[in-house]
């Protein structure tokens, strides 16, 4: 499952201080060795958490991106981009 790799790297941001520092310094370089699709890589580097959520990435885990301020995200931009995702009653993306 490719989205597994996105979820996993978000968690590594919390657990691996060296990876966290690398992501803060140069996200493209830090992501280069990871097994991501071209789409996932592009969306991560663009901080497009809404599109990643629609692909199945986990919200708790992506929340580490603004927490550690990587990929250009902060709490405000994260909030706005996630809230722009249309979801149904149980939080599943629609449309």
């Amino acid at each position, binding site marked *: 499952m490719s989205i597994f790799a996105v979820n996993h790297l978000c*968690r590594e941001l*919390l657990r691996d201080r060296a990876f966290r520092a690398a992501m803060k310094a140069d996200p493209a370089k830090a992501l280069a060795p990871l097994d991501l699709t071209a789409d996932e890589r592009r969306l991560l580097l663009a901080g497009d958490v809404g599109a990643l959520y629609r692909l199945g990435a986990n*919200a708790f885990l*992506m929340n580490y991106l603004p927490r550690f301020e990587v990929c250009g995200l902060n709490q405000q931009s994260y*909030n706005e981009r*996630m809230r722009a995702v249309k979801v149904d009653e*149980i*939080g599943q993306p629609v449309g």
Partner: protein
Amino acid sequence: MAQIVAGFGVPHTPVFPHFVKRDGPDCEIAKLFGAQKEQLAATRPDLIVMFDTDHLNTFFLDNLPIFAIGVDKSFKAPNDEPRDVPNYVVPSNADLAAHIRTAGVEAGFDVGMTQAYSVDHSVTVPLHFLTPEMNIPVVPFFISGHLPPLPPARRCYALGQAVGRAIESWPENKRVVVMGSGSFSLEVGGPRMAPGRSDGVPDPDWCARVITYLEDQKIDQLIKESTQHQMLKAGNVGGEILNWIAMLGAIGNRKPNYVAPQMQNGHAYGVWRW
């Protein structure tokens, strides 16, 4: 024989330790946890069994249990860096944990095991406020409450009953408090956050209804309405109510001393003593 002497329902919002440090002992959070701390001390507990939902910290998607119990003599807490929470080593009781697991598996609950583990804010934050000296052993029992498929509410209640029987068949003379940790309606980091916040309360009506059911001992109604759909509708951590339901199973159908709501957070602080 061990006896269950109280049930507690607790929130675990990771930023609460920071807020209390910032706002002091008169803020609402400090008072609500402070009242529970007094109640807990009055029960003279020897041991705490805490039902809890991990947030992909103790367990990850590479090996995600529905039910699991921590079996070790101690554990580290927290593993996810909540603000203004020290690094604790919490004592536990491996023998009792193994006994609960064995009894659970024999009763038809497929309870996994973790050793050499750490826990996240969901175990740590309540203990930070209620047992800050970390001198009371804690056995964490993990219930999957975030990622569907969620275990059915009725099954979690029956699980709590089985855990209660296991505790009360433990030959040592221990006073055991059972806790359930979590929210009733909350979205964390997902599309249903409130504007400008990192969380939101998607279903305040449900939160209010849960509190009424708890106060009125309408546990069967609570279980009936806690469908997977309702829990997910209440937010991406809405399944944490399963921890309260398991706690209720363990303590039996009793009237709470109080259930103090914090509606803006979609959760409450509950105490059951007898």
